[in-house]
């Protein structure tokens, strides 16, 4: 019986089967390829087409790049070394390195000064860009413009020193008077700074030898240095102006509002190049007769006005994005307008506007190449002018233009990556 029973139960598995490996098509690299590259016929065709495009690009550039000649004194010599094979003539970069970076009239023995200023720029920017760094470093950031001016332009240290003293005096007066009212503090500070600068302007010509570096006039500056100088100066100058314009545009006072609106819309409606024309041929007419304001300063003025209008629009967006409750809360606390703006509104609005401001900064930095059109020798002006026109390097287009692309790409791409990082960092909403 028991036998019969034993036979009636066919088979009972007591252990579970080991898991079978997934089908080959559903695992590992094959699955990835199937899902991401060959999901459908059309997709597969696209993949093949893309691979072909990549092949075309690489096959055109790789031999050119890796077979390049880095040491030669002219294009002819370069071609001799290459001897008919494909290859770039990167020797132009090594031979004209200093010209590309500093322009062709900056004194050779003084290259260390702008280089030092460039290195110090990173130290000055670091505490602004990364909030985790100790706040004390901001003191160096505050000093940097004056140090950089002294290093790049040279001359007596008294000029930047008096400029600095003017700011300090203005700040001290502002702090003193600010307790009575913001307006008194602000205008008192500005007045005190102006008085200091006037005194300084009167004194410095007599003491021009004090701690003087060799002076270099702005017309001798060029190359990538000029792009960096224009970009950094104009962005930092246009921030406060942009904030003022944005607040003015939001103002309830019609006259102030319309002045700001007309200025912003006018500047945004015309191309930068026309403003550079203004700087080049027209602005000199508006200065007092006899004052020869140099081209660099005129260009800085116009680019600053240009970018401040764009920054104003970005900040206005930030202001508009704040809930109305913030304004009302500030009012209900009894804060007056300057206090409400400084303590409640602007910190939040600026935080929202940071990505936009960074975008404007990147755009502005790229636009500094436009000065080559009004015959300033920035990096593009150097390439198209003195270097390509020289008998040694006439015809070395791709190496030079490629270099310009690389230096701009590196800076702009890192800034935009920083902006994305900052956006993630500042995102305080919970998701």
């Amino acid at each position, binding site marked *: 019986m028991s036998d019969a029973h034993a036979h009636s139960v066919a088979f009972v598995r007591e252990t579970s089967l080991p898991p079978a490996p997934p089908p080959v098509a559903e695992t590992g690299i094959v699955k990835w390829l199937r899902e991401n590259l060959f999901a459908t016929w059309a997709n597969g065709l696209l993949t093949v087409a893309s691979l072909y495009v990549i092949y075309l690009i690489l096959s055109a550039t790789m031999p050119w790049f890796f077979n390049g000649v880095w040491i030669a004194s002219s294009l002819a010599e370069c071609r001799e070394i290459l001897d008919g094979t494909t290859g770039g003539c990167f020797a132009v970069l090594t031979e004209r390195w200093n010209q590309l970076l500093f322009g062709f009239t900056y004194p050779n023995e003084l290259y260390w000064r702008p280089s030092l200023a460039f290195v110090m720029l990173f130290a000055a920017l670091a505490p602004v860009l990364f909030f985790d760094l100790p706040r004390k470093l901001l003191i160096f950031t505050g000093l940097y413009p004056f140090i950089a001016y002294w290093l790049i332009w040279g001359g007596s240290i008294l000029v930047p020193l008096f400029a600095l003293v003017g700011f300090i005096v203005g700040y001290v007066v502002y702090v003193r008077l600010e307790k009575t009212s913001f307006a008194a503090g602000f205008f008192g500070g500005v007045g005190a700074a102006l008085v200091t600068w006037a005194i300084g302007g009167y004194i410095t010509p007599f003491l021009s030898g004090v701690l003087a570096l060799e002076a270099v006039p702005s017309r001798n500056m060029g190359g990538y240095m000029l792009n960096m100088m224009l970009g950094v100066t104009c962005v930092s100058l246009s921030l406060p102006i942009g904030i003022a314009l944005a607040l003015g545009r939001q103002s309830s006072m019609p006259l102030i509002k319309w002045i700001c609106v007309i200025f912003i819309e*006018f500047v945004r409606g015309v191309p930068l190049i026309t403003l550079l024309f203004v700087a080049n041929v027209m602005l000199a007419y508006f200065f007092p007769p006899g004052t020869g304001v140099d081209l660099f300063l005129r260009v800085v003025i116009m680019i600053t006005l240009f970018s401040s209008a764009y920054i104003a629009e970005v900040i206005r967006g930030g202001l508009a994005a704040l809930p109305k409750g913030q304004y009302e809360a500030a009012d209900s606390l009894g804060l007056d307008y300057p206090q409400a703006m400084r303590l409640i509104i602007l910190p939040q609005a600026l935080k929202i506007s940071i990505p936009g401001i960074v975008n404007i900064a990147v755009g502005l930095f790229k636009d500094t190449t436009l000065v080559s059109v009004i015959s300033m020798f920035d990096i593009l002006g150097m390439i198209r002018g003195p270097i390509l026109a020289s008998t040694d390097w006439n015809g070395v287009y791709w190496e030079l233009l490629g270099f310009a692309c690389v230096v701009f790409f590196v800076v702009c791409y890192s800034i935009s990556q920083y902006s994305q990082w900052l956006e993630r960092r500042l995102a305080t909403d919970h998701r």
Partner: protein
Amino acid sequence: MSTTTDPQGGTFRLSMLLNDTRYRSMTLQAIAAIVLALALLYLYSNLAANLRAAGLNISFAFLGSPAGYDINQTLIDYNSQSTNLRAAVVGVLNTLLVAFLACVTATVFGVLAGVLRLSNNWLVSKLMAFYVEIFRNIPVLIWIVIIFTIMIAVLPGPRAFRGDDATSSMLFDLFAFTNRGVYVPGPYFTRGIGGEGGSIINWLLVIVVLVGSLFATRAVTARANNIQAATGVRPKTLWTNLAIWFVPIIALLFILGLSWDVPALKGFNFAGGIKVGGPLIALWFALSIYTGAFIAENVRAGIQAVSKGQTEAASALGLRPNRVMSLVVLPQALRVIIPPLISQYLNITKNSSLAIAVGYADITATLGGITLNQTGRAIECVLLLMLFYLVISLLISAFMNVYNNSMKLKER
């Protein structure tokens, strides 16, 4: 700040101008007005003094005098004896031409790249990301110079097309890419109305017919919609619409005797056809790919802004994928895409002023370049130049705002 204020009664004190909110904004505005007036007066007096010292005056009479220079690419008749004003008009038309062409192609590039960047295909989306990052982060002026260099340094001269052992040949025997420009077949009418000079009338006729077809197809679609709403059955409109589009225009072109003037090598250069100059192509193409990268980002953001629930809801209603796209996703995405697209079009128009770097005769190069240098009328030229761009910018914004308003969410 003062904590208590005595009731002021009817008396008015000077300090109330700053401390009383009723008067403060008036005071501040009065101060602003005075400061502004003083600043303008100061600038004006400087200007007047400088002009007097240089022996100049402000006058627009130079616009009527002969320009005295040639322009290689013109849309209207122009020679060196034409006035400066006409040179400026040639420049205006050239600006509008390149801006229009670049807007169209930049939109095509941008939409393609933006959509492809969202593709499931890993390689394609990475390739598009590469395109966007490369072109966004390098100045447009460098791109213009690069493409212009390709035009003049890489493309062969007309000589290379000559002889039995020609090193270059024309594409399909229709297009010639040379370092002097690209030659394409030019259409003309053998039986056109108005003889030699009447080509504009003929082209207007073509445009009128095309616009007529557009309205006719819209009417057909509207009728189909009405029938569908009334009966539930949508009549087939595809063949009717195709017929409305193609039959009238083909008939018209046949009546007018459309013919193609194919460029051919004559002597040392190509003759016949339409010559598109190297500077125009460089500017057009560079602006298109540069701005296309920005538009791609706008398109991507716009499509991503439509939540997935919308697509799913549309599918749940039983719509097919292409109708989901055209009826649900696209209308909502366009609402996000259009405002930044407007500013990209504005940017193209403004960036077209970089023509001066490659010698394309737009308004900046004619009025702001050669005319300015020849007449020395810097202030007048720059003012006119700014005025032109300002008007164009305002017009584009106004036009696009109208469109934007018609697209935006109707809230009731």
